C-alpha cells in the first residue's frame, strides 16, 4: 500500500476510535427506579435529546468536577448528590458544551434535559416530573463502569464566566 493511503487509513481509524471510545465503560442496561433521595440528598436525572446533531459523540455528565454518567442520543441516567449547589455539565471531551446550576433541593428529584439539536438548541433545561416520566418510557438507561473520575472544576469555571 502506498504511504499516503496508509496514513489516511490510520487517521480514519483514529477518528473512528475517537468517536467510539468507551473510556468510562458506558453500557445500556435495563432501568430500575432508584430509592427516593434522603432528606439531605438530591436525585438528579439527566436525559439527552434523541437527535442527529453530535450523535456520533458521547458526552460525559459531570457534577462539579466528577464524571457521573455518559450519554448518547436518546439515553438517560441518574445519580444522587448531597443537597446543595451542583454545576451539571455536559462534557464532550475536551470541551464543556452546556451546563446547568442545580440549587439546593433537599429530598427532591431534579430532572434535566440536554437539548442537542440544530434547531432545538444546545443547552440544559429543567423539565417537570410528568415530562420526565414520559421520557423514561422512551429513552434508554445507561450506566458507567468507571465511576467518580475527576475532571476540571467546572463549578468554579462557570462561576467565573458569570461573575
Amino acid at each position, binding site marked *: 500500500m502506498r504511504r499516503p493511503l496508509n496514513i489516511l487509513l490510520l487517521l480514519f481509524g483514529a477518528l473512528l476510535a475517537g468517536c467510539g471510545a468507551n473510556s468510562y465503560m458506558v453500557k445500556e442496561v435495563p432501568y430500575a427506579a432508584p430509592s427516593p433521595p434522603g432528606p439531605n440528598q438530591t436525585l438528579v436525572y439527566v436525559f439527552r435529546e434523541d437527535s442527529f446533531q453530535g450523535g456520533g459523540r458521547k458526552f460525559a455528565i459531570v457534577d462539579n468536577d466528577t464524571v457521573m454518567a455518559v450519554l448518547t442520543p436518546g439515553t438517560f441516567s441518574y445519580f444522587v448528590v448531597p443537597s446543595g*449547589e451542583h454545576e451539571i455539565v455536559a462534557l464532550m471531551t475536551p*470541551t*464543556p*458544551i*452546556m*451546563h*446547568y*446550576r442545580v*440549587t439546593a433541593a433537599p429530598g427532591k428529584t431534579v430532572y434535566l434535559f440536554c*437539548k442537542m*439539536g*440544530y*434547531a*432545538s*438548541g*444546545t*443547552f440544559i*433545561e429543567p423539565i417537570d416530573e410528568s415530562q420526565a416520566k414520559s421520557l423514561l418510557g422512551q429513552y434508554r438507561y445507561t450506566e458507567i463502569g468507571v465511576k467518580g473520575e475527576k475532571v476540571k472544576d467546572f463549578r468554579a*469555571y*462557570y462561576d467565573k*464566566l*458569570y461573575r
Partner: protein
Amino acid sequence: MHPLVKSAIAASTLLAVGCAHQINITPPLNTLDSNTAKVDKTVGYYISAADRAKEVITPGGGGDKVKYLPYQESEPALNKVLSNRYTKVVSIPSLDDKQFIASNKISYIFVPTIETDSSSDSAFTWPPTKFSVSLDCKAIGPAGTTVWEKKVKGEGQATFSEFKHDFSLAARRASKAAFVNLQQEIDAAGELR
C-alpha cells in the same frame, strides 16, 4: 433544470435566509442570590399565557438568528428576585381572579414587560455576541392600582472563547444584569415594604 443546480439553489437560499437557533435566556439562579432583608408579605406575579408562549426571534451572527421565550425563560429569575425579598411568592392565574388574590393575602402583584434585542460582530458563528434585556416591571396593589413601576436594563456580551461553552451566554449575562438591577430597585422601594 439539472438536479444539482436545483440543490445548489436550494442550499444557497437556505444559507441566505439563515435559520433560527434556539437559545435560553434564563440566568443561573445562583447568580441572583441576595442578602437583602426579607419583608413578611405574600406577593404574586402575573405572566399571561400568551406571553409565556411568546417566542421572539432576533439577530445572531453570520446571517443567522436566535429564538427564545423571553417570558417563560425569565419566570424563574423573576420568582427568585421576589423570593429574595418576600417570604412567599405565588404565580397569579389571572389579574381578575379576586378570590385567588384575596384568599392568598397577596399584597402586590408584579407584572413584567420584557423587550430584547441581540446582535453579533461575527460573520462565522451564530451565537450573539451582544444581547440586551429591557425589563419594565409594575406592582399592582390590593385596590388594583399601580403602586410602583420601574424600567431596568441589562446588557450582555460574550466572545467566542467564552460562548463556546454556553451558546446562550450573552443573553444570560444580559438577563442576569437586568434582574440584578430589578432586585436593587425593589429592595430600595419604600412603597413595597
